[in-house]
């Protein structure tokens, strides 16, 4: 027992040696995340105050009908609250797009209006909304352009059909006048299209707000990836030490337990180093979470026990991965790929509701999914005993697996 105690103290000392460096890194992560959070919050606030996505319009903008259409969009349509269309030369638009000042660049081809007027629609408006491959934002933009296209082509259909009917009835002289009248009527209807639906908001508050959702997910992600932060602890591990300890009656299970507890201490230190500035920011109202408005950091303190249980499980997972990996290099890469995979599938980046059913089920079975469920329950004031038990079981399983791997290593010598 004495040997075990000494070994535990030695592990604590090892962990303490990397603690200052770890705290410095924690602080830098905290500053980066804080700055990013403030910028995102500022962006969100300025959008609600009227700041809009700027879209650069380039190409042939000389047609007066097109000018009228753009003016109508900017003055009367609902989209004016979200989108600002700015005409500019191609080079300027390209530069602004590369600098991130424009959300997208829309190129209007020559003769677009004629093509629409004659119903040919063979000169599509091209848009570039990403420098790299398309992502969620670009796909949403694709949906928006589909909507715009549907509105235009449906109106075109009505106008051309009316013109054809007049032509068939030998009333060709009326076509111009009637086209203008029907055009105006259709534009008016397009602008008031949101009136087709009557929206009823139930206001059920059994989910998390966007702010609290991402606040909790960022903390969970930090815990999930903290294996990378603590990799320094595993850099120079002696391969002969476990055998030596075994000879001194410190078995694989005790070795793992002593090392794990010291490692868990490091994870907790990192977590608290992150939580202190967060608590201060919450206390001063710098982080706006609707559910906790006016309550300072008190609700945050009340959910710490849930995060601690999750931290214990993630620490066990990370410890097992380092134990199973042959060397620090493989250990780090395993930490990264497992952390990001679990985080992505369990909805730490995009909400899991965005994913197909099977992916959601898989994500909820992962330790990261159980952790998310457990913490979400605590945030909503619910005791999700099943998720809590799963967190405990996963912790034990990972420690058991780590001890088994250590046992095999000792037997192999």
């Amino acid at each position, binding site marked *: 027992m004495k040997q075990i105690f000494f070994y535990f103290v030695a592990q604590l000392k090892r962990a303490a040696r990397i603690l200052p460096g770890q705290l410095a890194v924690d602080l830098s992560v905290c500053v980066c995340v804080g700055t990013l959070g403030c910028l995102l919050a500022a962006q969100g606030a300025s959008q609600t105050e009227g700041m809009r996505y700027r879209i650069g319009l380039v190409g042939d903008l000389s047609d007066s009908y097109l000018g009228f259409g753009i003016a109508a969009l900017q003055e009367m349509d609902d989209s004016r609250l979200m989108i600002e269309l700015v005409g500019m030369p191609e080079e300027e638009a390209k530069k602004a797009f590369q600098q991130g000042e424009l959300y997208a660049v829309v190129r209007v081809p020559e003769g677009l209006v004629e093509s629409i007027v004659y119903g040919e629609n063979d000169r599509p408006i091209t848009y570039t909304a990403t420098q790299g491959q398309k992502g969620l934002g670009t796909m949403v933009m694709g*949906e928006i352009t*589909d909507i*715009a296209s549907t509105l235009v082509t449906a109106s075109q259909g009505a106008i051309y059909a009316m013109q054809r009917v007049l032509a068939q009835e030998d009333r060709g002289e009326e076509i111009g006048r009637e086209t203008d009248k*029907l055009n105006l009527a259709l534009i008016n209807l397009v602008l008031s299209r949101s009136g087709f639906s009557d929206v009823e908001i139930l206001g059920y508050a059994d*989910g998390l707000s966007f702010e609290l959702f991402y606040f909790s997910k960022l903390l969970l992600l930090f815990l999930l990836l903290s294996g990378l932060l603590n990799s320094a602890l595993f850099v120079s591990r002696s391969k002969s030490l476990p055998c030596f300890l075994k000879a001194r009656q410190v078995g694989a299970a005790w070795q793992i337990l002593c090392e794990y507890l010291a490692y868990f201490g490091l994870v907790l230190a990192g977590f608290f180093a992150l939580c202190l500035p967060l608590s201060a920011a919450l206390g001063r109202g710098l982080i706006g979470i609707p559910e906790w408005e006016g309550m300072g950091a008190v609700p945050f303190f009340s959910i710490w026990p849930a995060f601690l249980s999750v931290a214990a499980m993630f620490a066990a997972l990370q410890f097992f991965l380092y134990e199973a990996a042959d060397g*620090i290099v493989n250990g780090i890469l395993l930490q990264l790929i497992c952390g990001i995979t679990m985080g992505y599938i369990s909805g730490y980046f995009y909400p899991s509701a965005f994913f197909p059913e099977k992916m959601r089920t898989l994500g909820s079975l992962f330790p990261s999914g159980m952790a998310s469920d457990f913490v979400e329950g605590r945030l909503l004031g619910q005791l999700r005993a099943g998720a809590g038990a799963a967190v405990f079981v996963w912790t034990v399983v990972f420690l058991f697996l780590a001890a088994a791997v250590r046992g095999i290593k000792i037997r192999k010598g």
Partner: protein
Amino acid sequence: MPGRMLVRFILLQKRLLRKYSFLLMLCLAPLFAAGVGQLSKEESGIATIALYLPEGDSMAKDVAGRLLSGEHVLRYLSCEGETEARQLVEAGKADAAWIFDQDMEENLRELAKRRRVRPVVTVVERQDSVPLILAREMLSAAIYSSFSYEVYAGYVREDLGMEEISEETLRAVYESVAVEGSLFRMVYPDQTPGENEDFTYVQAPMRGILAIWFTFVGLAAALYFMQDEERGVYGRVPVTRRLYASYGAGAVFLVDAAVVFLVSCKLAGVYTDWKREVVSCAVFGICVLAFANLLRLLLRTPKGLGLALMPLGAVMLALCPVFLNLPYFRAGKLLLPPWYYLQSIHNDRYLFEMAAYSAVLFLVSAIVQRLRSRIA
């Protein structure tokens, strides 16, 4: 000389591939990519809509047909009744319910005659959100398609005074002039049409995730070299030539990782043209090699490099266009190899910039190495 280099390369490769956890780590990336690639084929959406259509209403059926056709970012659940649709929303199984009016066809006809817009669908939501605003726009556009026909029919009958014209004639004329196709087309900066790449938003972040993984392979290789240096593996290599040795050792890791990276992109469904992929990946590999080695020189110890991994990972996830594309911190983005790589797939400019950045990194590394060896 090339023969000796090849022998060293093979020996280092052999040493590396004997480690089962390195092989496991290499296998995990394509496994993850293939898993996401397969799972993304299932139905998914950024919002789930419970749809209730009244029986026998052809216009409601047309609108629903338009909503359900093609690939969209919404997921629809069909409901037998209004109550069921509401219950799905109340239970949190759907984000919104769209309950079409019982006499939608008649109502829309009446509204078209008067050329007015009034509610014909009741939208029930738990709480409003950006995906649901987009969803409502899609609903309005789908209704407008049917509505515009009714407006035309009403206009011809009432404003043009052709009350006797039959429904069949009106429909036949309308269909004969129907305008097909989209007015918009997404193109990448290299003018590749967006529709050439067929993947969903679930697969979209895979290239970014794999690019970060690849960068970490480079960093891990640098760490491996540092450990070898401490063990004296490179004791016989003069200090002035250590940098070349580290490039060689890192290249062994990155060659394996590059093959796995390309295979993973293919399995994830985000692969483009093989020439473009290979060239971008090769330049990216060189950039990562230079980046990791410069960090190795600057951070000096394995512990220092180990501690830097977490902030680096966090910065890459935040600044590279993986999950979100922030318009801030351009200066910070310019330091990250994955940022160049992710943009270079459809833009040669970034490929050249990545190559230039690699050259700068090699140059700075050479200067740092020289300074270090002088101080030593």
